[in-house]
């Protein structure tokens, strides 16, 4: 059987047996594929640095009959996260992308929009400038997997929120007006809602020159992470680490 070939993004690797690695790839043509890279732990000859998380590769694999795991034959690096400086904030941001993609994407279901989104966000993730690409990724990812609620109306009464205060709560699927907000709700600023609107209309490159400290749209990011975690029914490990980053 001929080898399958696709552009792919390496999401995670786990040690398997003595010298093998279990690799999760997000391939362009088949979505999330899990496969075994034989001897990848012991010998770096065939895979080199291609199996580092978030490396953009051209992957070659074959699916074995009646076996869930593919056999990863080789990977050719197209873009490596190691080509640019890996600061601590960037490492956590890369980890967050990998975790969100791994948790949200179903096996063997191609999703070209998410693939393109990931590539453009990876391009923008450099040095300590992580908050804009992360906001863009979380916002679009939540929308593309269908978890993003309507941001312009109150989820309880349906009133328009444009121009008025909006609140969110970890257990509520959407924004609420001041009258319907729950106890211990947090407010999402008008600026952050405007940022979301802008990000839906423009490519990520348009925001590249904008100064983006951690505080900017932090409430929007928190809302998006809560939305994702509510649907996943679990906490995202990297979300807590991102919160603790001080810059």
């Amino acid at each position, binding site marked *: 059987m001929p080898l399958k070939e696709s552009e792919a993004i390496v999401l995670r690797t786990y040690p398997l047996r003595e010298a093998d690695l279990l690799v999760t790839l997000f391939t362009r043509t088949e979505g999330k594929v899990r496969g075994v890279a034989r001897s990848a732990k012991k010998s770096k000859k065939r895979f080199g640095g291609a199996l580092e998380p978030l490396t953009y590769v051209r992957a070659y694999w074959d699916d074995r009959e009646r076996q869930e795991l593919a056999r990863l034959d080789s990977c050719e690096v197209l873009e*490596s996260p*190691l080509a640019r400086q890996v600061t601590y904030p960037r*490492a956590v941001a890369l980890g967050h992308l990998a975790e969100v993609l791994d948790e949200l994407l179903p096996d063997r279901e191609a999703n070209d929009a998410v693939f393109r989104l990931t590539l453009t966000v990876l391009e923008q993730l450099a040095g300590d400038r992580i908050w804009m690409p992360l906001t863009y990724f979380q916002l679009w990812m939540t929308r593309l997997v269908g978890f993003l609620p309507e941001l312009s109306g109150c989820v309880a009464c349906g009133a328009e929120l444009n121009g008025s205060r909006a609140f969110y709560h970890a257990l509520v699927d959407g924004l609420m007006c001041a009258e319907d907000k729950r106890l211990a709700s947090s407010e999402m600023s008008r600026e952050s809602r405007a940022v979301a609107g802008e990000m839906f209309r423009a490519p990520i490159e348009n925001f590249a020159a904008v100064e983006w400290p951690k505080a900017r749209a932090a409430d929007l990011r928190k809302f998006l992470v809560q939305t994702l975690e509510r649907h996943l029914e679990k906490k995202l490990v990297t979300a807590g680490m991102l919160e603790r980053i001080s810059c």
Partner: protein
Amino acid sequence: MPNFAEPMTRLIDELKKLPGVGSKSAQRLAFHILRSSEDDAEALAAAVRDVKAKLRLCSVCNNITDVDPCVYCSNPTRNHRLVCVVEEPTNIGAIEKTRHFNGAYHVLHGSISPLHGVGPEQLRLSNLFRRIDAGEVDEVILATNPTVEGEATAMYISQQIRRPAVKVTRIATGIPVGSDIEYADEVTMLKAMEGRREL
């Protein structure tokens, strides 16, 4: 699994917990121990007990040792103002094999790994910073692995050190000696070009 006598089953179950040991290997090892002499079995049991009872971390560098400070930290012929930071105690052996490094070590016992929830606070960094603050160090060599996690760890430590009196260096990455450039992967080649030096 066939029904073995209870002590045998217990031994197999314990051996199965070791990395890389499956049911079959555990059985084979258990039967080997059963057939070995009383002295050999006792020596094995004593070695396992001693590892847990006598080994601890060096209070200076976190290396695994039976004497505190460890052999590297207590050796007066070594340059203690030159500290090489490694991820695991096993990395020390690789550097010692060169027979060209005469400095001291610092073992982190891991690296920053966001996907596993490991941040800088989980690494053993405090005694390194104490040594630096006490003015005992001139140069820190960051010898973490050339992976995303190792690079992030090295970058984090270098940013935390930032003192004019302390030189911070990173080990080089590039083409392995005796290999062929033709077969080097893209990232390694890129790093080798970046790290080129003047002759």
